[in-house]
């Protein structure tokens, strides 16, 4: 799923799911690198959203004024 449209909850759920798979060593090395990248993308998304979701929030604002 495109992180831009995720909620924190969905992002955290996906992160937890991946971490569990890594813990259980269910992933081979190729998958591992891909999944770790995904975790990093999700965490970055959450951080960005925390500090400024910018255009997205502006859009909400616009929608409310309409």
């Amino acid at each position, binding site marked *: 799923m495109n992180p831009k449209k995720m*909620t*924190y*909850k969905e992002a*955290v759920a996906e*992160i937890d799911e991946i*971490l569990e798979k*890594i*813990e259980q*060593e269910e992933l081979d*090395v190729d998958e*591992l690198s891909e999944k*770790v990248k995904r*975790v*990093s993308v999700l*965490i970055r998304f*959450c*951080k960005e*959203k*925390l*500090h*400024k*979701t910018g255009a997205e*929030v502006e859009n*909400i*604002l616009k*929608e*409310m004024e309409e």
Partner: protein
Amino acid sequence: MESKHLTLSDLNLLIKDTFDEKFPGLVWVKAEIGELTVNRNGHCYLELVDTDPQSNQVIARARATIWSYSFRMLKPYFETTTGQSFANGLKILVSVKIEFHPLFGLSLNIRDIDPAYTMGDLALKRKEIILRLQQDGIFDMNKDLELPLVPQRIAVISSPTAAGLQDFLHQLANNPSRIYFYTCLFPAAMQGAETAGSVIQALEQVYEQETSFDVVVVIRGGGSQLDLASFDHYELAYHVAQFPIPVITGIGHDKDETIVDLVAHTKMKTPTAVAEFLISGAEAFEQRLLETELYCSELLSNRMKKEKEWLQQTVIRLKQGVRQLVKDEEHQFNMTAFRIKNSVPSFLHRHDNRFVQHRHRLQLAGLRTLGDQYHFLRRRGADLQSLTCQLLEKRKSNIMRAQQGIRGSLNDKLKFEQSRLAVTDEKIRLVDPVQVLKRGYSLTYQSGKLVRSVNDLHEGDQLVTRLYDGDINSKISNFKAHESKKNDL
């Protein structure tokens, strides 16, 4: 007869006397404040009512007054004790002097008030409201909602002028972790009789944009501790309890919790506390992200370490395997080399014989081919020679024919040119000046110049006349121009 009839004044005085006699002192009365006004002088005028609890109908009514000197003391006493402003709708227990004025009629003059009664009444009302909400089955509905991980889009219900609102917004906007909060204000009255209605209205506005918000914050900052009854309100609590987004209160008091606080998802004491709650929640989430990041990289490096160890093990095993393999192959190779060494001489001998045979056959075939080629070339050479001789002959006779043709045409041309020369010679002979002079013409010169006109001459000029065979010197004695030529000059 006249003495038997009372005047109205007499009657009213009589009634007054009866009241004074019947109620000589003060009386404690329970009543509800129906209306309340305070005039410029600080006197308080009230209408006290009694309502039937079943039908809610007013069943008794009386005017009452609190003179300013009493009101100045009673009002603060009542308000600080109950936490309620002295206003319409409250049930009070008051000590009154019953007065009857002949002109103004019955009036109760309030001398004292017992706040404990009002508090008891309010507590009872609260209990009733709570019970009713519980019976409705909605008391915990808002509490049961899940607060989003980071409530970042906040609908704020407050009075736009409240100091608490500014503190709240400032604190959110300037949080040290620089977390972004989006807030939208839905204005509502936070004090006075219209509070509950206007907060409900604001909630309805938020509800229309339900998906745009994570949380609703109801805040009322600073100011008076009064008017909490506005939040002990059944209708308002009913709306808050059933609101589909978590409601956080910061109504700004620290005594009892209001019913709205009780049904809200989370109750904070002040707007600042609400802001702190939201910020710390987001910070905790960010902290969790950081920890997750660390944990993930730790997991990754552990896993990579394991994989690396496995790889090293594998390399060692591979090296050993390869060494063994090389050894085996070397042995095999040596065996093969030995066999080849043995078999090569006989092989070479066999092939040597075959080589000699092949050389002989090749020699024969080569000679044959060379002979064929030689004859062929000889034939082609002879053909070429005879062809060349024929061509040469043909060219030679062509040239001879051309020579004769040229010679004939040159002779013709010579004869023609000779005859043309003779004619031209004759023509030249005829125009030769010597020939002309021979035919009797002469030339006349004056001072070496040929004379062409008499106009060039004067009398006495020396003339030389040239004839065919000599010159004559003469002198002009007289001359005359021809008439016909005069005009031409």
